[in-house]
């Protein structure tokens, strides 16, 4: 039911590993962690969702906010390693059309 957040910085890239569940309780913390990471122009924010085993609309809301923030700051965001369930939510809401989702990316842990 909880969410662990681990942030690594590496050559104009923030890599954020999430582990747990994104819901009304944990999404505020996620938003508070991600938004400051969008501020550097040219940086890419890579969010690894491989260990996220639950997400609902509160998670979608966070990623919409973060996307808006990246547009403002001329940085960018990519979501990687989505589980089928999590991907389903982006798909049925149509958000996969505006959010950069990379299903193939692997081994970006370094």
């Amino acid at each position, binding site marked *: *039911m909880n969410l662990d957040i681990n942030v690594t910085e590496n050559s104009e890239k923030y890599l954020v590993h999430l582990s747990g*569940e994104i*819901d*009304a*309780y944990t999404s*505020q913390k996620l938003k508070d962690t991600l938004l400051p990471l969008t501020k550097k122009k040219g940086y890419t924010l890579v969010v690894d969702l491989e260990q996220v085993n*639950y997400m*609902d*609309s*509160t998670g*979608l*809301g966070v990623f*919409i906010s973060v996307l808006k923030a990246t547009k403002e700051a001329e940085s960018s965001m990519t979501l990687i390693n989505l589980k089928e*369930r999590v991907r389903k*939510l982006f798909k*049925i*809401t149509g*958000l996969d059309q505006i959010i950069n989702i990379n299903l193939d990316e692997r081994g970006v842990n370094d």
Partner: protein
Amino acid sequence: MEAFDFIEMKVPAKEEYVGVVRLSISGIANRMGFTYEDIEDLKVAISEAVTNAVTHAYEANEEGEVTIGFGIYESRLEVMVADHGGSFNLSEVKNGIGPYENNESIENLREGGFGLFLMQALMDKVEIKNDSGVIVLMTKYIDEIGVGFDDDHVSTTK
């Protein structure tokens, strides 16, 4: 009258308890024989409804309760989520309810963004009543294949 079991939960209208309700629904749905995919759908849909109720209470500056009722039928699960405390009167709730219409009175609920949309996408039926507090009534049918209340498995090989 059609036979059913009824489970009721009351939790404080606080975000930290959405996950508790989610665990309960996953247990109920597992017992009923829902598939993994359907259980995940139910978890999202019920979390959305409870999150809405919590947000509603928060905006109204209330220290309220959220009441969740689970009607367990052989072929389906009916879930009711009400954002004011007090027990459900099932027949009253079900009579007074209509399909969701995009009108102003539920503006509040739509602030949840994709919450209501997900409920409707993931459940077979969603009805919303906005009277004294908001009541959401959702139904999901059990897939015909691989259903069984008795989910113990005994296999024997020699």
